[in-house]
């Protein structure tokens, strides 16, 4: 029988290794797998490369993981916000590498990794500093940049509902990078608000099909990163 559910967050992240590349889904306050990230902090893996659209806020979730000093490199499109103090300090102190990628290229590189595409040509960033060192090629009257897939060892994902096969739905804008990150990680770990019986998600409403998911843990009442940041909370 297929049962991808695990009972504890600890178990869910147990196998993450030093040196792994980790996708962390979420955009703004929507779709952050905060409990999984905190479990990863407790687990202790180091020398990590993280991929997220941003670079964390306050001192919880992704920012708290950065704050442990166990992240070697951050890959994102926008590593700056009103609350991204941890990243900015590490960056200015030269303690973390940064790869800035246009948001659409970031998304497409992740999808390419999941879809078995070894490279693609995009007009985005042609003629800008972010295309430096990349192959440029002219198609259809304009310059395009060759971009390579971006895969990860692990994806940490927040879903709304999940079943034991690993089918997922997401709530509203919490979808964001979730579906494509699930596609492109060797091991996709999901925290879900609701674990539902197989068949409860209508087949036409499945957003991430089971094939892209490896582990599911139920977290019925995930924390609000926004409230935690407003309250000045630190993890751990």
């Amino acid at each position, binding site marked *: 029988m297929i049962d991808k559910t695990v009972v504890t967050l600890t178990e869910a992240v147990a196998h993450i290794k030093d040196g792994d590349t980790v996708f962390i889904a979420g955009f*703004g306050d929507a779709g952050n797998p905060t409990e999984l990230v905190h479990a990863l902090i407790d687990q202790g893996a180091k020398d990590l490369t993280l991929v997220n659209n941003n670079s964390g806020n306050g001192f919880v979730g992704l920012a708290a993981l950065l704050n442990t000093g166990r992240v070697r490199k951050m890959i994102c499109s926008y590593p700056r916000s009103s609350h991204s103090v941890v990243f900015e300090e590490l960056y200015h102190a030269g303690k973390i590498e940064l790869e800035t990628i246009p*948001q659409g290229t970031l998304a497409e590189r992740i999808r390419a990794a999941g879809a078995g595409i070894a490279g693609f040509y995009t007009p*985005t960033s042609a*003629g800008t500093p972010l295309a430096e060192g990349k192959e440029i090629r002219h198609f259809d009257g304009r310059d395009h940049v060759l971009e390579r897939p971006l895969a990860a060892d692990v994806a940490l994902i927040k879903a709304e509902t999940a079943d034991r096969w690993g089918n997922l739905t997401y709530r509203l804008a919490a979808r964001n990078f979730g579906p494509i990150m699930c596609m492109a990680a060797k091991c996709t770990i999901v925290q879900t608000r609701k674990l539902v019986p197989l068949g409860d998600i209508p087949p036409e409403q499945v957003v991430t099909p089971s094939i892209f998911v490896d582990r599911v843990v139920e977290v019925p009442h995930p924390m609000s990163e926004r409230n935690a940041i407003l309250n000045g909370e630190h993890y751990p």
Partner: protein
Amino acid sequence: MTDGLTREQVAWRIAQDMVDGSFVNLGIGQPELVANFLPEDREIIFHSENGILGMGPEPAPGEEDEELINAGKKPITLLPGGAIFHHADSFAMIRGGHIDACVLGAFQVAENGDLANWSTGGSGMVPAVGGAMDLAVGAKRVLVMTDHCTKTGEPKLVEKCSYPLTGTGVVNTVYTDLAVIDVTREGFLVRERVDSLSFEELQNRTGARLTLANDWRPLTAF
């Protein structure tokens, strides 16, 4: 700027050019104001990079939902007809030429349509680009909303951008507090300008040669 329009007035002016039934992406910050000034007879579908079509107005206080936010990470609402999709699909819409117009801010716009709006290139800055480069190359019409000059009086419309580029040859029209200016093959063409300045005074505040359109009109707002 006593010489020109307020930001709200520039937003109003841009809103008048939004075509009924079009799909529009408003950049984070000042461009978001445009949504407040849409003529009532137009139905515009707003796109947000984080996977949303059909954004509605800000929610009433207390009605915010942390999982319903826009690209600027602010709470929004969804109109009937709204749709949710993932990031790769969202940028397929942008890069694939499906967005009719986007409104972006700018550090500089060059007379050939080059746009610089993501970095001043300072060594101390963390390089952060977000979705600006995708919007710049992908939207059918790239509209820029900006002050005509920087706070220190430097022109933002220039012959050649000195800041790192966001995209090359991408800008269609620039809306400033002083003028509405199309980017044409012959450079900056002034379609509208405020009455309070002469054309020469406008030219003096601009870093590239301006041409006044034959059918230019005074730039006015609500």
